[in-house]
């Protein structure tokens, strides 16, 4: 689902330092935050919002659609399960370095409850001019502006940079979707392409990939049959093969998962690939004006 202003957001870990800072930004932006979770501060009010012991408790008093997790990696499994079982439609999982098997347990809880997980290790979602859930400078108008281009990115900083480049070239964004840098993300590039193809507010998509895994290859398969134009940038062309680049997911491989495999798959699907992130605006502008 694409995040909309009416979606009710519960912030797990809201009373912490980062939870407080970003919840304030979200409320200022107009996001529909209905409350927070903090077991030790249950029953209190923080930033004018009710604090609950668990998502399950919150679900009774303050029904929500989206759970945003400011929860450390060691406690993410329990918090995500709580949110899924409390009926969240979407759980945005920000933490990096969650143990891999905990991530699998989070996905199992999501499957059992019909919840979509975004992340782990995502910077979250921005729907410019409407709402946001995550750790993105949504209110910076040089970076994000309302418009018609959907942005999908594994990396938060790169998604932010690409949004900036689009905005500066007069291309606003319909939705910016950070899928996260975890090797096993709950929402794939292909999933978001499907959402954006169906979204009447989106006319074109900018895809920001990275070396490692097969998300870009899978996305290319779907993009080949899309009605809307897609352009991509894949980070890691200049990275040495076999070394891990930050994200656990980003390992340059020589064969599948490597830069050239991804670029070839995308180009084969009719998706032009930018050499530098700034070129994405040019490529999309050309595709949009060309019909």
């Amino acid at each position, binding site marked *: 689902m694409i995040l909309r202003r009416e979606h009710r957001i519960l912030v797990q870990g809201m009373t912490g330092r980062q939870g407080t800072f970003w919840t304030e930004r979200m409320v200022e932006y107009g996001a529909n935050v209905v409350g927070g979770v903090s077991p030790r501060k249950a029953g209190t009010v923080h930033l004018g919002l009710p604090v609950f012991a668990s998502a399950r408790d919150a679900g009774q008093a303050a029904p929500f659609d989206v759970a945003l997790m400011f929860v450390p990696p060691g406690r993410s499994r329990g918090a995500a399960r709580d949110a899924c079982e409390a009926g969240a439609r979407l759980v945005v999982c920000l933490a990096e370095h969650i143990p891999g098997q905990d991530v699998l347990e989070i996905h199992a809880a999501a499957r059992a409850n019909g919840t979509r997980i975004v992340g782990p290790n995502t910077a979250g979602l921005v729907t410019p001019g409407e709402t946001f859930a995550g750790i993105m400078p949504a209110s910076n108008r040089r970076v994000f502006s309302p418009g018609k281009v959907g942005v999908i990115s594994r990396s938060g900083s790169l998604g932010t940079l690409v949004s900036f480049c689009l905005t500066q070239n007069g291309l606003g964004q319909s939705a910016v979707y950070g899928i996260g840098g975890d090797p096993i993300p709950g929402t794939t590039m292909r999933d978001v392409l499907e959402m954006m193809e169906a979204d009447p507010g989106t006319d074109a998509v900018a895809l920001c990939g990275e070396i490692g895994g097969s998300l870009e290859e899978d996305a290319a398969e779907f993009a080949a049959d899309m009605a809307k134009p897609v352009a991509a940038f894949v980070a890691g062309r200049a990275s*040495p093969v076999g070394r891990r680049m930050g994200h656990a997911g980003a390992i340059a491989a020589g064969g599948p998962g490597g830069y050239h495999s991804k670029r070839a798959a995308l180009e084969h699907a009719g998706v032009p690939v930018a050499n530098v992130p700034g070129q994405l605006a040019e490529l999309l502008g050309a595709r949009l004006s060309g019909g």
Partner: protein
Amino acid sequence: MDFEENAAKCLLEKWGIAVPGGRLVESPAEAEQAAREIGPCVVKAQVPAGGRGKAGGILPAATPTEARDAAERILGIEIGGHPVRRLRVETRVHAVRELYAAVMSDPESRCPVLLFSPLGGVDVEQAAMRDPSAMRRLHVDIRSGTVPGEVSGMIAGARFGSAAGAVAATLERMYQIYRATDAALLEINPLAITPEGQVIAVDGKFTLDDGAASRQPELAALAADPRRTRLEAAAAAEGLQMVELDGDIGVLANGAGLTMATMDAISHFGGQPANFLEVGGDAYTKGRTALRILLRKPGLRSVVVNFCGAFARTDILVEGVISVLKELEPEIPVYFSVHGTGEERAVELLRRELGAEPCFWMDDAVRAAVAAARGETS
């Protein structure tokens, strides 16, 4: 975190999976002594890398003298960038069948998956590509674990005779090990069946999930040392991931994606990046430490500082960068591009403290750094 074979086999043995008897040695003399006790053996390089056999890192030895010669030939060679410093000398196993077995976290199904092939050995990947049905998969519900009938079903038709039960038990045990140890991957290839019907792990590969290292400290301590340069090790000691490259243009950016993109841009505009060095995520307060380490790299001719803050506050990053530049006064030029969270204050600090004007476009900062590295004045 990868384990060397010897450490992986000690783990398997502890969990009740049979492995060939063997010892870790560090010199030809020790190898000779070990072979005297073991008999006909195999001398195996201990490095956390694949392709050891093809690289000449695994040699059979019928006698102690041959073991000594084998050790002399293997010690010191480099496999996958790792110099060989240790060997495992172990009993040679007679196999009537060689199988492949693994358990890992599968990104596609988002489940643990058990893999099994009746065609084990060095070329299992090629065999699986020729005949995809040769690789059997069992997705496991992580909440309930393996169901006994499922695992026997997985090996059905492979005609293991009396060893079938032991093969199924080994697969189930592998899943238990995977869960208990927070493995990202546990692989046995080949898993041999001996003429006596014994099932034995002739090779073993174990990768501990990086995210689980803090709750598996004893296992983490057994992991192989990753190959790192001195600067990479210095960065790692500060909780920063650095990869040194051959180029002369230093890169400091937040987030792995943006850092790689900055390296790509340097290379696209005709320059050569000197490093990957990420100060993203929680590391955004470490801009000072990161730049200090980066500036120690010999041969740098310019530096690009490219920040685009989401979670990372660019003003905090820039404060760190400014303090290092003021303290060390490097002679090489530094070019900035800064956007996102904290941008206004970051730009103001750069102007006030360094008299530096950040480039509006990242590409301009990169082009300027490439020109400076070539000795052109921009």
